[in-house]
């Protein structure tokens, strides 16, 4: 158990670091997909089967694809000529290293962490569904509302501004793809919960 978790951790972190350091955006996204798959493997090893599958469905199947579509639509598939790092990148790296040091020190030296491993609870889909429909029904409804609002908002933002009245129908065509992507994310997560 511990060995496989360590291997998963190494793969995930390597993939994430690759995703953040490559020059080519498309390679970054592919590495990101590997990182997401690694996190899903983490969930599966921690007995959270449903969440692990949902992670693959939402992140690898929807978010990575969405990012890929955005890359294609903004034509940023080629590596840029100038530096990929913004001004003040040095301070950014210092700060993130400080953050990691602080959290890591806290984790290694904390006495509040539980030491004994409890027996795995059976977080079956049935239990999750029952909890969603009873105890967490209000958050569920709110999430539904938020997702609808996000979908409408994304469609409105990405709609091309129409200058002439005549071209409106054809102009709105590309946004249909995007609305499709957003509502995949919504519907697939809803579909999993039902």
């Amino acid at each position, binding site marked *: 158990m511990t060995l496989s978790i360590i291997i998963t951790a190494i793969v995930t*972190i390597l993939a994430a670091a690759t995703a953040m350091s490559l020059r080519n955006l498309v390679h970054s996204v592919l590495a990101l997909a590997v990182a997401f798959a690694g996190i899903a493997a983490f969930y599966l090893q921690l007995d959270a089967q449903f969440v692990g599958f949902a992670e693959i469905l939402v992140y690898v199947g929807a978010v990575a694809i969405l*990012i890929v579509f955005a890359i294609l639509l*903004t034509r940023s598939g080629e590596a840029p000529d100038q530096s990929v790092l913004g001004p003040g990148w040095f301070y950014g790296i210092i700060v993130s290293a400080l953050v990691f040091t602080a959290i890591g020190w806290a984790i290694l030296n904390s006495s509040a962490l539980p030491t004994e491993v409890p027996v795995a609870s059976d977080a079956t889909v049935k239990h999750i569904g029952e909890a969603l429909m009873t105890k967490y029904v209000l958050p569920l409804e709110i999430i539904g509302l938020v997702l609808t609002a996000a*979908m409408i*908002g994304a469609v409105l*933002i990405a709609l091309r501004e129409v200058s002439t009245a005549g071209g409106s129908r054809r102009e709105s065509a590309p946004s249909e793809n995007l609305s499709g992507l*957003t509502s995949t994310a*919504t519907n697939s997560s809803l579909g999993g919960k039902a």
Partner: protein
Amino acid sequence: MTTLQICLLASALLFAIGFAGAVTRRHAILVLIGIELMLNAANLNFIAFWRFGPHPEMLTGLMFVIFSMALAGAEAAVGLALVIAIYRHKKTSNLDEVKELKG
């Protein structure tokens, strides 16, 4: 080192990598990717604490992760729509060249 500590350390490292990426990279989409990584690191924490915490039968951490995933999907959709909208206006997705909102 216990399994919980390994999970937490991995999640902290993921968070740091995501943070570094989001702060240092110029490209808008890469900043979004960094934010997604940070969200996932937080989710990993929730799952680890749910699994090794005192009450795994309560499903609280699991529920939080499910809702946070749904929100992350919405956030990615809106964020990428913003990137596309900015690209249409400025023909660039480089964040250093988008300075109108600075005032």
